[in-house]
């Protein structure tokens, strides 16, 4: 294969890429900014972070000894951030989305609960007002309130004698492959955003190719005594180099600023990155081969990319998806890229866990490139 033309194409594409300030900002600054934001939001229970507390409102309409005991117990709970408010405030705040959930202890709740515990009357209602968009918090509060209420009512019924207590303690252990590897939400967000903007950079290269055709540059390239394989290899190489730069610069920032670590295999991490860049390069060629004009190609390919990164778990982890959707997303290359990076960073897994993502990503790279070569419009009318 002709190395001089391929090297020249890579050098030229890098020069053109870095000459376009907007493209550079898009490729490097944007993923870092957005990944930093997502990482902050989803930083999870990593070292040095305070445990997240469940925010709730509590309304005491009963003002009984039992309701006071419940509220004291709730406020003392380290897992909850409870604020006492009146009923109107609670309703208004939940309605506006300012608070996810409010617990209302209605008038007469204490007496009725005492009677219900010994079976002499029906059970009173503990009212829970919740924002329908925050049903997870509703379920959590529902569960969390049970021991507080049970303890307060039991103490009121049985006095200071033996109390109802949870008959076990909980030991929590975050599982990563290495003991020293703590979960770092930035690792996932930088992987996701790195992949997204890597694909955007690939789209730009594909569109650049279409623009080159419009400007007559392709005519000149095709008049040189170089093969189609050389031309495609040159484009594929430059897209891979630029894609790798986008990914690894983004990760380097995360490592330096947010202490993300490659707790797993470094070779696996690099392998996933390069395979991912090759996949994106093939995708860029596909955009160039299927697109008729730069503008038409840009719109369709950005839409396709957003779907791919969304389904691949680049925005939010795939475990929040319904089970059927989780199964389907294995046909999306970004899913393998995100899983591969997660495995090599915060999960701290060995290179064997990178093999499958690398193989699948290379498979997608081959598929995209083959379809691009097949569909590419080689001749100038």
């Amino acid at each position: 294969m002709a190395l001089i033309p391929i090297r020249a194409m890579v050098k030229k594409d890098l020069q053109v890429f870095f000459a376009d300030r907007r493209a550079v900002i898009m490729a490097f600054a944007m993923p870092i900014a957005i990944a930093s934001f997502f990482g902050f939001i989803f930083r999870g229970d990593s070292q040095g972070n305070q445990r997240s507390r469940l925010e709730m409102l509590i309304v005491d309409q009963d003002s009984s000894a039992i309701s006071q005991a419940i509220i004291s117990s709730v406020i003392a709970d380290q897992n909850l951030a409870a604020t006492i408010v009146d009923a109107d405030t609670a309703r208004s705040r939940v309605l506006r989305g300012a608070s996810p959930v409010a617990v209302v202890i209605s008038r007469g709740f204490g007496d009725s609960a005492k009677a219900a515990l010994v079976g002499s009357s029906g059970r009173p209602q503990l009212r829970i007002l919740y924002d329908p968009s925050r049903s997870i918090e509703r379920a959590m509060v529902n569960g969390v309130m049970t021991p507080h209420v049970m303890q307060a009512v039991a103490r009121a019924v049985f006095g200071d004698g033996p109390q109802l207590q949870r008959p076990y303690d909980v030991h929590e252990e975050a599982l990563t492959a290495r003991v020293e590897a703590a979960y770092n939400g930035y690792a996932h967000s930088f992987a996701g955003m790195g992949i997204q903007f890597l694909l955007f950079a690939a789209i730009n290269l594909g569109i650049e190719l279409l623009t080159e055709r419009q400007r007559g540059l392709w005519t000149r390239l095709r008049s040189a005594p170089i093969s189609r394989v050389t031309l495609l290899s040159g484009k594929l190489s430059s897209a891979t180099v630029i894609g790798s730069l986008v990914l690894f610069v983004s990760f380097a920032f995360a490592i330096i600023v947010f202490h993300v670590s490659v707790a797993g295999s470094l070779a696996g991490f690099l392998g996933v990155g390069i395979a991912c860049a090759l996949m994106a390069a093939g995708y860029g060629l596909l955009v160039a081969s299927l697109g008729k004009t730069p503008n038409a190609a840009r719109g369709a390919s950005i839409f396709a990319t957003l779907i791919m990164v969304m389904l691949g778990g680049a925005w939010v982890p795939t475990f929040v998806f319904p089970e059927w959707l989780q199964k389907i997303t294995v046909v999306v290359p970004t899913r393998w890229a995100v899983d591969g990076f997660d495995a090599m960073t915060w999960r701290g897994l060995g290179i064997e866990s990178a093999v499958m993502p690398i193989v699948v990503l290379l498979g997608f790279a081959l598929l995209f490139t083959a379809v691009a070569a097949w569909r590419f419009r080689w001749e100038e009318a």
Partner: protein
Amino acid sequence: MLRVSHLRKAYGALVAVDDVSFTVDRGKLVGLLGPNGAGKTTTLSMIAGLVTADTGSVDIDGKALSGETDPAKRRFGLVPQDLALYDELSARDNLRFFGALYDLAGRELDDAIGRALETVSLADRAKDKVKTFSGGMKRRLNLAIGLLHDPDILLLDEPTVGVDPQSRNAIFDNLEQLKAQGKALLYTTHYMEEVERLADRIVVIDHGRVIADNTLDGLTQSAGVPTLEAVFLSLTGKSLRD
């Protein structure tokens, strides 16, 4: 040097080029004339290997061109109608890139770049980005890229479109020099005075077919009119073309 024999190209029912044959000899410039859509650019594209001919052949010194990687393609230099330049790069970087496509590298490439820039009088602007160039300078750089690998045959597709008289005159001087060096030049244009000044022979194409192939004097005498423009109109008619 260049022999085009019975070239034909059809796009579905539309026959763009039909049985076109002509030759271009060493040290000569052949003007390829025709109205819009006559088939000039398609003919040029087939010669340059950009479009595959349905039938016919292109020979250089008796040897037929075969395939896109045929080393004989090095003997062609194409100057396309579009300004096929990277505006974001300097003139030197443009030349460096296109030179590498012909496997030029190192000292050989540097020397070729120097010669090409000198030829088109752009040596002092070598480091400037192309986007800062005037239309005429871009046209001259477009020509320089075609000359970079020292081709024997130059295919020029309307190389003076939109340039000022000074740049046009400079390009003419370049072409005269190239002829004197023994290069074969095939030149398409709509400007009759350019062909009158430069061409040793003129091929007129219309509706994809060669309708005349002669010297300027031969054409005017056989048509019985004084100018090439009158010859052209008598051959192709006065009706407007798309």
